[in-house]
């Protein structure tokens, strides 16, 4: 039969064994890796804000949760976009640490508070600069790292943005 000629049993058997070996090795290595990830963790997204730290994965945060944290002054906002975009309009009080070239500001990053939530954002829906910067902050040892994925696009629908530099927020 033509089909078995292009997908012979020995090739399928090899592929299956390689896949099973990768599954076993991958799961075992993840268990042994101190920076391994939780597999099968329950998805987050409850309305209430759970204050426990997030050691390996930035926590997604909704606009309601963000505003709750902002009111309690429990969050420090960080804008991960370019300088031009930041100056053009950002969330009130947000610091500017662009993901592109963040390491040049490593001293500033290390001086960020560990006890407050660092909430990162970028332009919204389709950007990942905040996620990428969050990964770097977690690598730097920060445990309270959240990403506001709605970003500028969602926030500006209902709230005014602040233009220009922020003064005296650090």
């Amino acid at each position, binding site marked *: 039969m033509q089909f078995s000629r*292009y997908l012979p049993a020995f090739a399928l058997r090899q592929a299956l*064994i390689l896949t099973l*070996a*990768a599954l076993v090795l991958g799961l075992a290595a993840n268990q042994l890796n101190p920076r391994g*990830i939780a597999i*099968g*963790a329950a*998805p987050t997204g409850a309305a209430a804000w759970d204050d426990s730290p997030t050691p390996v994965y930035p926590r997604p945060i909704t606009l309601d949760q963000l505003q709750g944290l902002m009111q309690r002054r429990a969050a420090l906002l960080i804008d991960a976009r370019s300088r031009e975009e930041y100056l053009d309009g950002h969330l009130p009080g947000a610091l500017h640490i662009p993901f592109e070239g963040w390491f040049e500001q490593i001293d500033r990053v290390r001086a960020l508070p560990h006890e407050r939530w660092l909430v990162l954002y970028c332009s919204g829906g389709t950007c990942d600069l905040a*996620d990428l910067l969050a990964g770097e902050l977690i690598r730097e040892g920060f445990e309270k790292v959240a990403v506001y994925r709605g970003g500028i696009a969602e926030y500006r629908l209902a709230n005014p943005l602040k233009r220009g530099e922020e003064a005296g927020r650090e």
Partner: protein
Amino acid sequence: MNRIKFPRIAALLRLGLGALFIYASLGKIMDPAGFALSIDNYRMLPEFLVALMAAVLPWLELLCGLALVFNCWTPGASLLIFAMNAIFIIAIASAMARGLDISCGCFSTSEAGSRAGLAHLVEDLFFLAAAGYLYLSSIASLQPPQR
């Protein structure tokens, strides 16, 4: 199905593709959380599958890369690399279609300048073709000729 026509080209493709997949797997194996973020940014999989994929996929890349380099189980490994590349192409194309501005996550987990876009799509199409050629030539050389 024809016998292998260009054995030197097949050997070159096998070594190149194998080395490339080994290289691509190492950074992800060291940093599963970073790779999980890259996968999650494509917004195609539920959370538990993202974590499982982040833990297992780099090892599959590594094993298939090693198999190709050592020319051991080349049919199975090239078949898997073909399938993986087909999935990568679908993921990148879908990210482009949805206008997602995300990093590819193709070769490392923190590549700021490497966005999921046309360049990676073309690259993966080339790898897909190479894996397909390797697969067909490797099964041809292991099967008796028809009739």
